[in-house]
């Protein structure tokens, strides 16, 4: 294998990994703050894909308008879902089980609602940008470069938001100690709602960026959820920066693994890695014990 192809695969791995990071960080944000494992996260991704498809293809909006709009709708929908389901369950004694059951149910409902409303057709969106970037022998479609740039920008934005804004402080404080957060005057329930919305927005953005490459169907969220789990386990459950790092790492490991074996082994590689991490470092590669 020559060096250019190898580097190209590493870059492709980072690009895929940046999407894993967006998906995983949404799951991590909700788990870290609310201790709720959102099994409907994949369906929020799927709906984000549909929103993008309808706005871009049906309504003919340019991507720089349709994508932010799709993400905004997903944010609002995420908050609404939290308000209607989790809000009532999380205050009960058996919340740990009921929230898992509720999000699992929600996942099935959303899949079948999508099937009923949108049909089983696989929908794609045209490339947002055309052409191929060439540096020496390395060739990457601009579409993929765009995915990576957008992902990095959003990750940067979220890192800034968590570290320096009032909202970010309230999210981190709630994640670390819910009672203490309430006592200093943080409306914890509202923080939960916003976190759920932000997670949905992150998932929707990933779906929107991948829509030209991965077709949107009612089942599009299932593999996404599984990959998201691998990411949060590798990164340390509930750690936002851990999920980012683990997402990128997983993308690269898969890319190299696929080079050495074949593309059917992609999921085998990632789940083997996950099981190995559960075995050796159950707190995650980047988490604290």
């Amino acid at each position, binding site marked *: 294998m020559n060096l250019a192809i190898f580097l190209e695969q590493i870059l492709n791995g980072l690009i895929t990994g940046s999407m894993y990071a967006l998906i995983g960080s949404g799951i991590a944000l909700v788990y870290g703050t609310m201790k709720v494992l959102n099994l409907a996260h994949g369906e929020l991704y799927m709906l984000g894909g549909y929103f993008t498809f309808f706005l871009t293809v049906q309504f003919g909006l340019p991507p720089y308008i349709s994508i932010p709009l799709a993400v905004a709708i997903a944010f609002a929908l995420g908050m609404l879902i939290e308000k209607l389901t989790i809000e009532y369950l999380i205050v009960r004694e058996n919340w740990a089980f009921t929230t898992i059951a509720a999000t699992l149910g929600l996942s099935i409902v959303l899949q079948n609602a999508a099937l009923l409303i949108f049909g089983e057709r696989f929908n794609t969106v045209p490339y947002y940008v055309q052409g191929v970037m060439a540096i020496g022998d390395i060739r990457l479609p601009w579409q993929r470069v765009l995915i990576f740039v957008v992902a990095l920008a959003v990750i940067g934005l979220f890192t800034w938001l968590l570290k320096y804004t009032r909202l970010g402080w309230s999210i*981190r*404080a709630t994640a670390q*100690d819910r*009672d*203490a957060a*309430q*006592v200093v005057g*943080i409306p914890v329930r509202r923080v939960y709602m916003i976190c759920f919305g932000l997670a949905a927005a992150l998932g929707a953005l990933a779906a929107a960026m991948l829509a030209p490459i991965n077709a949107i169907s009612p089942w599009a969220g299932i593999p996404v959820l599984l990959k998201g789990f691998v990411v949060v386990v590798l990164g340390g459950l509930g750690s936002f920066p851990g999920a980012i790092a683990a997402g990128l790492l997983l993308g690269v490991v898969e890319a190299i693994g696929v080079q050495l074996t074949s593309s059917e082994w992609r999921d085998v590689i990632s789940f083997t890695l996950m099981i190995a991490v559960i075995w050796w470092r159950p707190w995650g590669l980047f988490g604290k014990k």
Partner: protein
Amino acid sequence: MATDSAKPMLDVQNVNVIYGNYQVLWDVSMQAHAGQVMAVLGPNGSGKSTILKAIMGLTPVRSGKVFLNGEDITNRPAHEMVARGMSMVLERRRLFTGMTVYENVMLGAYHHSVQKYAKDRLEWVESLFPIIAERRDQIAGKMSGGEQQMVAIARALMSKPQLLLMDEPYLGLTPRIVQQIADIIRKVNAEGIAVIFNEQNVKLSFGISSHGYLLESGRVMLSGTGDEMMNSDVIRRVYLGE
């Protein structure tokens, strides 16, 4: 008692709290007045932490009422309390351990109703606890227990409370630190802030409080001024071993 003539700042009336099938508080009533330091005494499991949590809105009250400055605050959410002039230091500090000292302290002035005080209050708490300026960027979880308690108290003072609740402020601290914390409580009180704290050790409590309640198995057994309490038969026999 002179304090009975004035309207109480905090008025707890016949509060019952039940966890699952277990009743923790039985018809607990207590009053605290502006500017006082009040102690809630009692052994482990007497409900002395629960009553503070119930006042703050962290634990649901099954029946009974809690009034703060004449307003009914029963079962109001805890995050509203700082706006009403009450804040709390939780048991075992409960800092945001992954955040810096500065972030912890500033979060004490998070609520929009108290944000405007943040700058002045920060100066004041830094004068009370020099460690807050010195260790500004240290991760709070890496400090010693006594240092963490100071940050926790500073955080609770940032919202400019009239009433400060302290859940077992001396728990797990060395005698030297306990003396420091007691001095801090005096200083806080000297600023006109009423303090209610709970503690097992009777002698330690009446070193700084003017007034107290004794809880046992979730019921008020005794109340009165420090002297009255120290001279009561129950306290002398059970707690002082005389």
